[in-house]
């Protein structure tokens, strides 16, 4: 499945990132890469700091230290990255430093979209409206900051029609066309999960971050989700996902990063991760002495 050629260019790079809340270190000196065209999974036991990593990447938290860089259009070039870091700017020439940007700019300019562990749809708006709101930026530009929209200019009408078509395509893809005009809050749980993914995709991201997309889904819905995520990747959007469901992780991800107590304990292809003793130890919960023994054995 995965392309056997040379590794694809790096899209997102997290370097030596730490996040401390008072005395608690939630993420400790974490570094990893997300490559273009990959599904990268971030896994780990409860409380390992996965959601904190997400919040740092998407700008909802500012990391205590470290660098997060994103190249939405090309690949991360180390020399250009260092020059940008020294310049003190937030970004430029297709390179963005996410730790310097506010959350909405990360979504807008660095083109990182996300979903939430506890679904955050606009419950009182219809499924269709949810998808239209996600296309705020192109629509806002077409409405010339509401002036062309107020007088009903044809250019705005065309833009709105395009937005509606895009939303309809996504509703077709997630199988919710029949419920397009129902309020999002009234949809069943599984539908809400898929709608949230579709909404994030309507914001036109290069990297889609999913926080436990399979949580609470039954096996059939879970299989449908896998197919949806694969099709999103095949259409050119890279994915970074947090997941507990190992069947999802092992089946669809190209690259897995394992966290435990805020540290990276493993990083590699799913097959390697499955065989990694430290991962097994972290997940199965061996006694502390044995962990020490295992860690010594693997040189951690």
């Amino acid at each position, binding site marked *: 499945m995965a392309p056997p050629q040379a590794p694809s260019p790096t899209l997102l790079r997290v370097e030596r990132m730490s996040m401390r809340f008072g005395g608690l270190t939630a993420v400790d000196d974490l570094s990893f890469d997300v490559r273009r065209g990959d599904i990268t999974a971030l896994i780990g036991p409860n409380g390992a700091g996965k959601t904190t990593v997400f919040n740092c990447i998407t700008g909802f938290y500012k990391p205590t230290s470290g660098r997060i860089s994103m190249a939405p259009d090309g690949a991360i070039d180390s020399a250009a990255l260092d020059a940008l870091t020294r310049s003190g700017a937030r970004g430029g020439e297709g390179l963005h430093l996410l730790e310097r940007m506010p959350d909405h700019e990360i979504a807008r300019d660095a083109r990182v979209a996300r979903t939430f562990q506890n679904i955050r749809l606009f419950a*009182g*708006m*219809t499924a269709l409206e949810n998808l239209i*709101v996600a296309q705020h930026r192109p629509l806002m530009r077409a409405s010339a900051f509401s002036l062309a*929209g107020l007088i009903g200019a044809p250019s705005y009408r065309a833009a709105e029609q395009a937005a509606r078509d895009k939303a309809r395509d996504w509703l077709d893809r997630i199988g919710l066309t029949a419920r397009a005009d129902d*309020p999002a809050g009234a949809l069943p749980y599984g539908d809400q999960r898929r709608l949230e993914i579709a909404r994030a995709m309507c914001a036109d991201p290069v990297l889609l971050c999913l926080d436990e997309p399979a949580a609470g889904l039954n096996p059939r819905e879970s299989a449908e989700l896998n197919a949806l995520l694969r099709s999103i990747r095949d259409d050119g959007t890279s994915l970074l996902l947090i997941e507990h469901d190992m069947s999802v992780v092992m089946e669809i991800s190209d690259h897995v990063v394992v966290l435990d107590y805020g540290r990276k304990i493993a990083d590699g292809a799913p097959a390697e991760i499955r065989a990694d003793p430290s991962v097994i130890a972290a997940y199965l919960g061996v006694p502390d002495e044995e962990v020490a023994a295992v860690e010594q054995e693997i040189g951690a």
Partner: protein
Amino acid sequence: MAETSSVRAALADAARYGLIAGALAFPILALRVEPDFSNKLVLETRWSWMLGAAIAAFVIRLVLALAPARAARRTLATAVDAPSAGGKTATRAIAAFGLGLIVAWPLIVLFTFGPAGALKWIDNYGVQILIYVMLGWGLNIVVGLAGLLDLGYVAFYAVGAYAYALLATNYGVSFWLCLPLAGILAAFWGILLGFPVLRLRGDYLAIVTLAFGEIIRIVLVNFSALTNGDAGIASIPRVTFFGLPFIAGPKGFAAYFDIPFSPIHRVVFLYYLILALALVTSLVTLRLRRLPIGRAWEALREDEIACRSLGLDTTKIKLTAFALGAMFGGFAGAFFAVRQGFVSPSSFNFVESATILAIVVLGGRGSQIGVAAAAIAIVGGSELLRELDFLKQIFGDGFDPTQYRMLLVGLAMVVMMNWRPRGFVSSRTPTIFLGERKTIAADLVQEGRG
């Protein structure tokens, strides 16, 4: 069988309440100590009052106890026929009829009461209500759509009023030029208020906006050099018919159109002016709701964090909501100044803000028709209390119905809390649809937490 036993139980229950009410009324109502002419205290007894209280409690309790059966039937019925298409056309017909009535109101009143009698009905029941309808619609942008609780809306009303008052008296700028200026100035102050409160939510936002409203009023009181303090600004130029003043002389409106002069001309013109302003407010709001900016306001009310995750700049969205809401408040303020010919800080106290907010909440946040209905109910209702002079014949000369205004407003609030906690019109209409437009039930729509 069950029927009679439930009635018997209700009777017993009502009797108990009647007894309790009577017992409570004994010290409060039945006994009264009054000084007589020689300043000696005399104990009076009013057994009829006590009896009245007991009977009232008995009757009310009995009605309430027997009502639930009926109420249960009613909820069942509405649940079944609520989404019918017939209801939708009926609502539309009612809205069209209401609009027609509002447009024709001055003419209807003129024909019914004649020029002299109609003045009160157009001014107090027309212009006064429409000002509050407009203010309610303006505040609805901030509170109803964007979900930002604003307790200081009257500040923008004051800015608009003083903008016209100062520009017209000091520089002789005409009303038609001042109107947009007042709106722009108020919008500017709206943005100024917006900046410090961007990070605040809920209660904190409410407190800061409340303080802002008070600051504006206190500045108006104390900056005497500019605003003339508590005395206010008098003899503000009155409204003209596009340059033709409403005066009796040969240069006036009446002479130009060759009709006999009457003070009613100005009032009718003011009525249609505020009607036009209010309708513009409503149309712009309805239009904006269907544009990206309006959808962003509603999305902000639904979930601010989700908005940010989609790349929406919540700072700009909040500021535009504050600015637009303030702008319409400024228009209304300029109209207020040109109508009264006099402005003073006492017109812009907190009670005004509270009244406007009560109109929005009572009407249903986000609903245009609901807010208009609530403005008619609250403002028109308190005007109606002035008409109840005949009650003096029942309760004696000292009885003044207007004194009970706040009591009735409070009572109305309690009734609304129980009956429709989300206002008259609480459902939401989607702004775009694929198949059919279905209204969204109130319990799904968020109220916003600032």
